[in-house]
């Protein structure tokens, strides 16, 4: 049985439906990200788990208990806010000990636990500082320590890294993931940054306008997106219009150029159907490979050097495609205007 389950959760504000029939089952110790653009309902859903919003309908169960209508201070879930939310009138140590003192634990125990948390987030020397004396990254770590101190059953993180510098974001997200794994605590992480979600999650829930688009591991979400939205939101994508030529063998024509796809439900399509195909830029290559079924002619239009990645703009038929390849100083790239053959596998051709 799932540790945390959200069943048919819907949230309405007046006439506006912000979350529509959200269903998710999480195992204990799982790290799940809610990923989507602003306004997609991910934060609202998180806040319903925390108790700051009550669902209009649906049920939330934690470890067998129905917590849907429980007050937020009765739930024993730990929350990390985007704006840190440290109490400005208390030191770091006092902030971390807050939840424990509310629960009337013995002072000795509180001090021990606070020290334990301080070393967990590497802030032992900052115990007596006030929040305004800390950097953003440090404040967020205190926030993490404060939430973990009370031994919550679930950890909820509401875009905790959005307010931080790029470098700190990367190091802190790794730290958060390491701590989560070490403690084995179930966690929900809300973000609009796909790189964050991809790098640290066990599973990702991609949301759009209140609905779930897809749930899967990072690998699945990236390589086998189920909808246009997911494919476009996570990673970059080439899109083109095409027509079905041979449904039984999965062959389509784009600008007269034939592509073969591995999509399973192609048998239901008829010849002449108009579809959209999508191919990730890094799936193209110039090198011959028997596993790459599609071999098509193209013209090289433009080459942009981006550092680790070299982006080559090619034209297949009448349509421009982006092709990404790793930088290799010893490999000669084709000249602009050259006619080349480019290949990709049939699994790379997505029909969404």
């Amino acid at each position: 049985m799932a540790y945390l389950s959200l069943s048919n959760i819907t949230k309405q504000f007046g006439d506006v439906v912000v979350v529509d029939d959200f269903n998710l089952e999480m195992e204990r110790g799982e790290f799940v990200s809610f990923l989507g653009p602003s306004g997609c309902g991910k934060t609202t859903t998180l806040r319903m788990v925390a108790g700051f919003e009550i669902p209009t309908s649906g049920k939330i169960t934690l470890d067998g208990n129905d917590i849907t209508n429980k007050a937020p201070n009765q739930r024993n879930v730990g929350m990390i806010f985007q704006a840190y939310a440290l109490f400005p009138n208390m030191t770091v140590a006092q902030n971390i000990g807050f939840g424990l003192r509310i629960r009337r634990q013995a002072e000795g125990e509180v001090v021990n636990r606070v020290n334990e948390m301080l070393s967990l987030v590497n802030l032992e020397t900052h115990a007596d500082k006030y929040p305004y004396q800390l950097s953003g990254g440090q404040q967020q770590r205190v926030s993490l320590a404060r939430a973990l101190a009370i031994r919550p059953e679930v950890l909820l993180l509401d875009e905790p890294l959005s307010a931080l510098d790029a470098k700190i974001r990367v190091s802190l997200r790794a730290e958060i993931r390491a701590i989560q794994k070490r403690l084995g605590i179930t966690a929900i992480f809300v973000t609009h940054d796909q790189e964050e979600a991809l790098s640290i999650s066990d599973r990702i829930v991609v949301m759009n306008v209140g609905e779930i688009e897809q749930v899967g591991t990072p690998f699945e979400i990236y390589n086998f997106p189920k909808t246009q939205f997911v494919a476009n939101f996570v990673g970059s994508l080439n899109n083109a219009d095409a027509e079905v030529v041979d449904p039984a063998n999965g062959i389509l024509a784009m600008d007269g150029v034939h592509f073969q796809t591995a999509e399973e439900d192609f048998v239901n399509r008829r010849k002449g159907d108009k579809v959209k195909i999508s191919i990730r830029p890094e799936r193209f290559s110039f090198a011959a490979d028997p596993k790459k079924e599609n071999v098509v002619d193209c013209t090289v239009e433009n080459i942009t050097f981006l550092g680790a990645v070299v982006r080559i703009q090619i034209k297949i038929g009448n349509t421009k495609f982006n092709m990404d390849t790793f930088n290799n100083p010893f490999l000669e790239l084709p000249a602009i205007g050259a006619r080349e053959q480019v290949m990709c596998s049939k699994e790379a051709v997505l029909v969404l």
Partner: protein
Amino acid sequence: MAQTAIQLKSSGTATTNWRVWLGVAPFLLFAFLFLFLPSLRLFTASFTDSDGNFTLSNIIQLFSEPFIVNAYKLSIQISAVTAVGGGILGFLMAYAVTVGGLPRSLRSVLITFSGVASNFAGVPLAFAFVATLGRQGFITHILRDYLGVNIYDAGFNLYSFAGLSLVYMYFQFPLMVLIMAPALDGLKREWREAAENLGATTTQYWLRVALPVLLPSILGAMILLFGNAFGAYATAYALTGGRIGIVTIQIGAQIRGDVLYNPGLGYAMAIGMVVIMAVSLAGYSWLQAKTERWLR
């Protein structure tokens, strides 16, 4: 410092500092002529006796002359009472329209009214209260005719310390509202949510987080209210005609005619008042700085 002054000039050459100060000279001259010079005159004159010699006796008499000590005591009392009373009521009203959950429209109504009421002091305010709680006042009538309570028989008198306090409160608590509303806005919603999330009840949140964070702001505002009441003259004079001997009334009497038979004493009283106001301003500023640090 000199570096910055040079860089900010739109012309390329560095000029000597003093020329730039000419730009603020008119303002400084004005302040000197009409603010500092008068104050200075009062200050030096308070150390002068009737023959023009230096003396400390005026200052000493501030603390020894019972008549003067009483005046200060009254002023301090009424200022403290209305600062605390106005402070509490003002805080509660500011709370009601910010964190307290009343509709947004009520907030702007309250802010406008507070702006009006805190400026509505002096003669019109005194008259308004006479019409309300005077012997023939509106409320006096209602209480007598509908509730059978005659407040004047019971000992209440508008033209007394209690009555004056009630009148002062009319501009004190709106001032508190105007100061506290922005401060209460500074209470981040996340603090409350974080506290709830960690298990705290609303009371615990207020006692452990919100009130401590707001305390410098509240204290600072009350000190400001104290100074505000201490310096008030027209309202008291219009209401009681000089019967209640607070410091400002005594000074007013002294200006009109040397009732103390010692001009130096009048100046000393004035300086004593300035000192009290300066201390309260310093207290307020210090607490404001502390507030800003936390509510940034």
